[in-house]
């Protein structure tokens, strides 16, 4: 049994806006084992980034964690005072963001910013610091480190900046690296470079990685386990093959049918009907029910609980529960059966 280094239990995060409480994350739980790669997939507003920010405790106002525990090697990060948390951040858990243009400080050189991270989190002193910066820059595949450390962020391309961000995140060899949409702002060929780099470094240092993305293609060949989120809840989790080849939750099934899957298939896409969820008015039952073609009466009334489907896979969907308990309950007629793909209202 591998060592569990991060355990999230019943995490809830809300944003208290003028319009009301927006429940961005709704009681989610998951575990991350040492050296594993976990993918979190979801559309905008599914709560995937908020989950990451909650773990790092870098939520911006008016966001607040409203419940749950985040255990890093047994320590509850939510109970730590700010000062203590600052040590964990960067040293034990690092994050890289979507937009490398805005996450670097434009008025300091690359070298300066790397030095700062090393000075704050390690015992290195004086010339050792710069030495380590140069080493890190070389590690992330940037040529000519001696020249690069003297440059400012605007002198680098987008891919280069993301490499610098990765170098900074790796400065103190963290146990966990969280990559929040690491390649969304980059072009395809650069995206391939960055994904390859993350995979290389992961196997080299044996750290655990959480990759957060909306693009199922990005995680198809990188993750050990995948979590699918919708409207702040986990719909389904399983190994990569579970999710892609035998999805159980209706949302995952529909999502996979609605994206072009390869350069060869000419199969017509099946869109998911309806519009994205309004987090201010979450429905009482399953959040996906209003768009689900298999929705039953109970889906609209009661939030489904997660049930294990196999040793590696579980899903929170009434359709599964019904099929599993088909002996006890009469199958109900789908209420949204007349819903056609492409309808908007």
């Amino acid at each position, binding site marked *: 049994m591998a060592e569990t280094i991060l355990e999230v239990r019943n995490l809830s995060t809300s944003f208290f806006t003028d319009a009301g409480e927006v429940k961005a994350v709704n009681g989610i739980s998951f575990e991350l084992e040492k050296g594993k790669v976990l993918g979190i997939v979801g559309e*905008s507003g599914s709560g995937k980034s908020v989950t990451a920010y909650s773990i790092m405790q870098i939520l911006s106002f008016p966001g607040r964690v409203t419940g749950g525990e985040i255990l890093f090697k047994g320590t509850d990060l939510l109970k730590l005072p700010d000062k203590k948390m600052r040590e964990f951040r960067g040293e034990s858990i690092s994050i890289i963001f979507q937009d490398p243009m805005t996450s670097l400080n434009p008025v300091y050189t690359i070298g300066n910013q790397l030095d700062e991270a090393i000075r704050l989190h390690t015992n290195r002193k004086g010339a050792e610091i710069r030495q380590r910066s140069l080493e890190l820059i070389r590690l992330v595949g940037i040529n000519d480190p001696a020249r690069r450390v003297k440059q400012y962020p605007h002198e680098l391309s987008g891919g280069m900046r993301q490499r610098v961000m990765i170098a900074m995140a790796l400065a103190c060899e963290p146990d966990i690296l969280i990559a929040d949409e690491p390649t969304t702002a980059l072009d395809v060929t650069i995206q391939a470079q960055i994904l390859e780099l993350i995979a290389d470094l992961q196997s080299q240092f044996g750290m655990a990685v959480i990759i957060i993305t909306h*693009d199922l293609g990005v995680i*198809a060949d990188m993750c050990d386990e995948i979590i699918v989120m919708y409207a702040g809840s986990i719909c389904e989790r399983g190994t990569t093959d579970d999710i*892609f080849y035998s999805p159980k939750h209706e949302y995952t099934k529909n999502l996979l049918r609605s994206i072009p899957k*390869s350069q060869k298939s000419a199969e017509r*896409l099946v*869109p998911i009907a309806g519009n994205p969820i309004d987090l201010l008015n979450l429905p009482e039952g399953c959040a996906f029910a209003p768009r689900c073609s298999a929705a039953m009466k109970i889906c609209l009334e009661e939030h489904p609980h997660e049930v294990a489907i196999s040793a590696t896979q579980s899903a929170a969907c009434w359709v599964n529960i019904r099929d599993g308990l088909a002996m006890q309950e009469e199958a109900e007629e789908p209420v949204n059966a007349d819903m056609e793909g492409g309808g*908007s209202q």
Partner: protein
Amino acid sequence: MTSEDRKILTPAPDAALCPDDLYRPDPENILEVHNLSKHFDIKTGFFKSLPLKAVDDVSFFIKYKETLGLVGESGCGKTTVGRTLMWLYPPTAGDVYFDGAAICDKNVRALRRNMQMVFQDPYSSLNPRMTVEDIIGESLTIHRVYKTKEERRERVHELMRLVGLNKEHATRYAHEFSGGQRQRIGIARALAINPKFIVCDESVSALDVSIQAQILNMFKDLQDKLDLSYLFIAHDILVVTYMSDRIAVMYLGKMVELAKTDEINANPIHPYTQSLFSAVPIPDPVTARQSKRIVLEGDVPSPLHVPSGCAFRTRCPYATEQCALETPPFEDRGDEHYVACWNR
């Protein structure tokens, strides 16, 4: 677009007179583009400026009822191609033939009735102070295609039904709709005057994955129903593959390859196309594990300092001396598979 804006967008009479040659485009083609170039002057100092060759000597054609996909990375000039052939930017050089006639300043107003555009960002491309009815109906007013107000309203409602919007929502403003619905409004606006040709510039890239398929299928259905031709510009190669009959690939203002969709996917010839297509993240673990990515070295050079000869040679694994000296011609390698490369 208000009437003020239109004045600004009307091209200045500094380029491209109606070509007086007797060339007649192929009657099968709705659009023919010959050696199109668009250069912008970029100020690099007080008196200095450099030409930015956003589009450089690009030629292609689009047949009636066909979709041509245009892919490339950011800054390769794909948007500029779309805007230049709509004459939103007057071209620096080259000719565009649309629906049998050469486009020039004199006839572009009339020809634009048959060509429309759907933009990337459904949030900024709709005027927040206009109702949906006015947004969709504006081009009807501009081209004076209705007689009474009721007639216009009827047409707007018909268009809204066509794109799957509720006609009761005609009096609402754009901010009251979700991204996918806004894109539907943008499409209804483009369809208002019955165009034959639509430029879709990254029309689904701002949308959520679950909404994308709705809009893509709608584009396909409308094409069958209304006999439309599309230039489908996008950076997502899987989306372009799904939509297009043929695909063109651009790199730093030049077209490097153009072929039928199946052909270019199965048998890409240009080294840039090969690496671009191999870098596509495939949402299928088995295929993804088996496929070999051809990872390119380095970054795209600045479009202000395009390498001499073949623009791709600085990152190309097959580059030779010839590539630095001469620009490779964009040639047909058989079965309408065009490639610009010396070595492949």
